[in-house]
């Protein structure tokens, strides 16, 4: 049972990892927490649904188009709605994110109402049985795809100048500007990448969970919990935090009480903030006076 729960937890955690990582990408670049990110996840899944089910596009090209569409949406969101309020109170960013998230959710509700929509299974293979252990096709597909995506993401950061730019902007926006980085444009790109990665999470989970306008709400809190556990601003911390969260949910549900699955994320946030506020891989903020 332990191994079964671990596989299932890693599969769930892989989705949370994409959501947490996309939140962290935006947070690292802009110090803004996107409270509407769950709805970007939902929107990505719905774009993929429209392309796949309504327009008959094959899954892979549909997924790529949906990711591009969400990248552009993130870019436009940054340019059109975040840039104009830059310099204002931080709460303004939070409210703007929430408002746009609700607009996206509202659009989905207007178009699809309260319907729960099925997304065709992408990787329709029978589960593999090894004794009592069952490895489902969905789990293999999600874990495999996320591993590849994360490998590409971290390789780009480690092996290209983009990684250095990310680090420069994260350490000091003014310093980054002084060495010639267009920080505004960089931030727009960060919003675009964040929206696109969130969309990947939505696209992967949609065939497993069914689609509905409120799909993103639960993923947002999982993303926050993973970020908190991994350490705010830590990219690899977000991924590890997400995997630990996924596995913890399964263990808590099976070994303690199934009602705990839904509140594990909240318990982790409370526990980490009290015991280790900078998370597993974050750094304590030191202010020199």
């Amino acid at each position, binding site marked *: *049972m332990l191994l*079964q*729960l671990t596989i*299932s937890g890693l*599969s*769930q955690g892989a*989705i949370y990892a994409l959501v947490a990582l996309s939140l962290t990408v935006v947070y690292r670049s802009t110090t803004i927490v996107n409270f509407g990110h769950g709805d970007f996840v939902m929107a990505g899944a719905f774009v993929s649904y429209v392309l796949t089910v309504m327009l008959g596009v094959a899954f892979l090209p549909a997924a790529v188009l949906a990711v591009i569409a969400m990248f552009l949406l993130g870019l436009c969101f940054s340019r059109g709605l975040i840039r104009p309020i830059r310099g204002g109170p931080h709460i303004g960013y939070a409210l703007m994110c929430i408002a746009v998230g609700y607009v996206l959710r509202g659009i989905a*509700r207007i178009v699809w*109402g*309260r*319907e*729960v929509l*099925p997304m*065709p*299974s992408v990787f329709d293979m029978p*589960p593999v*049985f090894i004794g009592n252990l*069952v490895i*489902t096709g*969905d789990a293999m597909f999600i874990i495999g795809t996320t591993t590849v995506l994360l490998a590409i993401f971290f390789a780009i950061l480690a092996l290209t100048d983009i990684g250095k730019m990310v680090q420069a902007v994260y350490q000091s926006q003014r310093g980054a500007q002084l060495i010639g980085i267009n920080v505004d444009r960089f931030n727009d790109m960060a919003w675009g990448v964040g929206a696109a990665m969130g969309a990947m999470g939505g696209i992967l*989970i949609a065939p*497993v*969970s*069914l689609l*509905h*306008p*409120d*799909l993103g*709400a*639960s993923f947002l809190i999982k993303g926050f919990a993973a970020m908190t556990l991994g350490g705010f601003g830590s990219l690899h911390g977000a991924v590890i935090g997400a995997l630990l969260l996924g596995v913890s*949910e*399964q263990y808590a*549900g*099976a070994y303690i*009480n*199934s*009602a705990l*699955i*839904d509140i594990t994320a909240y318990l982790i946030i409370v526990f980490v903030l009290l015991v280790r506020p900078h998370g597993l891989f974050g750094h304590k903020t030191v202010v020199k006076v």
Partner: protein
Amino acid sequence: MKQTLNVLAMTLFTALPAFAGETTGLTDDTIKIGVMAPFSGNAASYSKAEVGMMAYYDKINEEGGVHGRKLVAIQEDTACDPAKGLAGVKKLIFQDEVFMLHGNSCSGVALAIRPVVEEAGLPWMIAHAASDSISNPRAPNIFHGLPTGSANGRAMAQFVLSRPDTKRVAIIEHSNDWAHSYSDPARAYLKENGVDPVADLVMERGQTDATAQILKIREAKPDFIIASLYEAETAIFLRDLKKYGMSDIPVMGTAGTDLENTLKRVGDLDTVKNYFVIHSYIDSLGGDKLKPWGDMIKKYNPDEELSTFSFASIGSAIAVVNALEAAGPDLTRSNFIAELEKINNLDTGILSDPITFTHDDHQGVKGSAVAGFVDGQPTVLRSWGERY
């Protein structure tokens, strides 16, 4: 003297609405009926439940009405929001001055407006919302014209135990009042019959994976599972059950899901082959016995896409029209309520169980049939293996 006049004035003031209310909403040729439903918002799909009732009114009107009076439905949107529902019911009662209310799809709204309706005293036939608390404790003017949550919950457990050799039953549910309204009466019925659930599990709304619950179910080795889950979570649970090779265990679901839509969501018959749901009608959605009712709805609403919800309110509409007929041309709210309370064992020709109201019991439908796939076809069942 002045004090006596004041008391007299106050008495008249408080008594006046009661007397004036007896024939409010009536003219020589119309009966105004307030129909509340979530016509907008994220629960708008539930307003389909009121379509059948209004189509039945149209049919009665086409046949000449009730004692020459046409039934005029005045719609009010609740958006499934208690605040909107309260505003809506006050408008219907005090501004539109309807004779009675019929409808309402959301239990939360119905519970919120109950005190207003009870105080106003006009008759209210509940057509879709299932919570027991709307009509229990009994209010003199409030009637439940469909199976309540407790009736459905007991019907679920009855069906489960009708399967031979069923001794081990697992329950999986949401942790909200809606889910408890099914699972608690089911649990009580099981207990009355000497069965204690072998697993009591929670699956919250929005969960996208049921592995932990399913592994516990696997350990518990149940003969039957009762699933008090909403549509999305039901589909996820059934899919995961199949993934882990456990789809041979029958699952009993609530009236909040239906067979056809669940099949559409999970995508293959094999996943739902052992799924059963509460089904309050005499036939399945495409069946011959429901066809005349479906044709009636289509006749007056050509664009309506039929689902099981579309038929939910017709049984209560038949009870309303029966009582209006029985009350005669000198209709008042009091004699209408009195006639409702005389309805005994009314076979509506659409609900699986008859409607009976008494002075002390306004919850009219005490049971429900079950639907499941038999030989790949949706089939209405009275008990395990026994067709309706």
